[in-house]
């Protein structure tokens, strides 16, 4: 298998910014099929903006993002839908719809995109909820769930259409260490068990060491990627002292 066939996401010469303000300048990286990939960087280095470009919410100033070879930024109509169906996204707060119960939230994509019977849709939605350990909260409204539960429900909704790729925006933000460790375990299980590729933006070092196969580090000064590799390797062998410092400080 060639290198190109193995990468699920190819980012080529991606330049992003707002107006005159450049955030990232001509970055390149690949995300391989089946790995857990983390985007790291200090606050304000453009992690979340990069993620929004990867999932096609924003148009890049230059360059392109290819998801299994297709560009989301240039696709329209059915082509765009086909690419969107390949991935799920977990937003920071879960982004559950407040007027729907948890199980209705998870069932929503099935209702909209499939012709399955109600029994089938309920069975699938409940199985995803059980996968994330929320089967007992199926009929609750999002407002009655805790922060960690909302994120897990968000993951259940993101995987209900069996995507091969999942984007996570700060999955551990605002969670206590135990809940956050539980979420890491869930990510590992989904990655190993279902073969889902993960791309996550985070600054939780503990969860990076426990789940991430590879990380890239963004630098706000050079507006590019300063380091790329396995997190533990970067911590010990990164050429830039500040990257080693960044990766070892909190982890100790």
């Amino acid at each position, binding site marked *: 298998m060639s290198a190109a066939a193995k990468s699920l996401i190819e980012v080529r010469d991606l330049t992003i910014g707002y107006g005159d303000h450049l955030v990232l300048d001509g970055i390149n990286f690949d995300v391989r099929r089946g790995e857990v990939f983390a985007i790291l960087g200090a606050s304000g280095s453009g992690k979340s903006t990069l993620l929004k470009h990867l999932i096609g919410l924003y148009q890049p100033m230059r360059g392109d993002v290819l998801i299994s070879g297709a560009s989301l930024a240039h696709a329209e109509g059915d082509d765009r839908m086909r690419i969107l169906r390949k991935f799920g996204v977990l937003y920071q707060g879960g982004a559950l719809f*407040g007027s729907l119960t948890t199980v209705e939230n998870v069932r929503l994509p099935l209702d909209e995109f*499939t012709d*399955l*019977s109600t029994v089938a849709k*309920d069975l699938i939605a*409940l*199985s995803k909820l059980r*996968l994330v350990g929320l089967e007992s909260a199926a009929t609750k409204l999002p407002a009655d769930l805790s922060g960690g539960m909302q994120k897990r429900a968000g993951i259940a909704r993101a995987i209900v259409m*069996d995507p091969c790729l999942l984007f996570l925006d700060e999955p551990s933000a605002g969670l206590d260490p135990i809940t956050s460790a539980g979420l890491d375990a869930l990510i590992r299980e989904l990655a190993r068990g279902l073969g889902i590729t993960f791309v996550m933006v985070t600054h939780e070092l503990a969860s990076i060491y426990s789940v991430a196969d590879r990380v890239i580090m963004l630098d706000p000064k050079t507006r590019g990627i300063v380091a790329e590799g396995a997190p533990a390797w970067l911590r010990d062998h990164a050429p830039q002292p500040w990257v080693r410092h960044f990766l070892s400080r909190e982890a100790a």
Partner: protein
Amino acid sequence: MPAKPPADLPVRWELSASPDGTAKLAFTGELDADSTPEAWHNLETEFKEIKVLSLEIEVRQLASCDSAGLALLYHLSVGGMTQGATINLTGLSPELQHLLHSFSSEDFQALQEHEPACSSLVEDVGTATWSWLSDLRQQVTFIGEVTLGVLAALFRPRRMRWKEVFRVFEVAGVNALPIVSLLTFLVGMVIAFESAQPLAQLGAQVFVANLLGLVMSRELGPVMAAIMLAGRSGSAFAAELGTMKVNEELNALETMGLSPVQFLVVQRVVAGLLLTPVLTIYAMYAGLLGGIPVLLGLGFPLRMVLHQVQSGLHFGDLAEGICKSIVFGGIVASVSCLRGIQTGEGPRAVGESTTRSVVSSILLIILSDAIIAALTYTLRK
């Protein structure tokens, strides 16, 4: 009794049943979200025709199977289509087997039996009364707080955040001029048109000018300006304060020892009190201007029209309009801020409080207009 599925489906199955009640079902192909609905439906009809006591399901030949396919296999394996039969599912890969464990008929049963909570009528009436009473209480407290705040601002004007007052004055007042002038101009025109005909029957067409002057200065000038303020700026106040509440900015103020009323509401109320009279006078003129082209069109010279307006209008009429407008301005600004502060939680809360601010403002404008009209009528007598 072999049954063949439709040829165009990516999934195929072979269902063979023997007379002793044993049946075999073997799948090949792709069982996914696209092919499952039809397969589900067809299998259901096929199983209805036969009596099955024990069923062997064989899926080794399945090329792919997603959650939808697993849901079908699970439904089959728990006897969803063959009540009371013993079922054996073989050939599932370990990964799919693991996923199949996440399906559970207890969860499904629990979901089916769950009924949304429904409250009784008595409970609803009680809740509504309680919320109405507590809203009333909040309003009274709020009026007191705002009055104290405005008085404090009058006596110690240095402590007032005048910059904020001027900002609100600009956004809610100056920026509203185009829409206020357009609307009142058109209303003035319409009134002149509509009244010209009945007055012509009495030979009193020249009094259209008097009528326009009176209506605009005593009634429509202040009311139109206030309603525009409620729709355009009151809703913005409510949304602004509501968003601040949702973002916990109001809590931040409170823990800093600053009262949200002092810090945010008083400026808006003072700006509202100051800008509505100005806006009202402007609206009165725009309304009169709207009537003048109509009167000129009816053949009256401009001098005559202006003279009629002058002779028909007294200082009392103008004063009444301006007094009304001050009351309306206070009402709109304070009620909108109150609705903003009362914003609850959740994504719809800000929208709800915006709606409530406009509804309450307009209701109170008309109500107080009626009271003032009754008062001035008795005073004049």
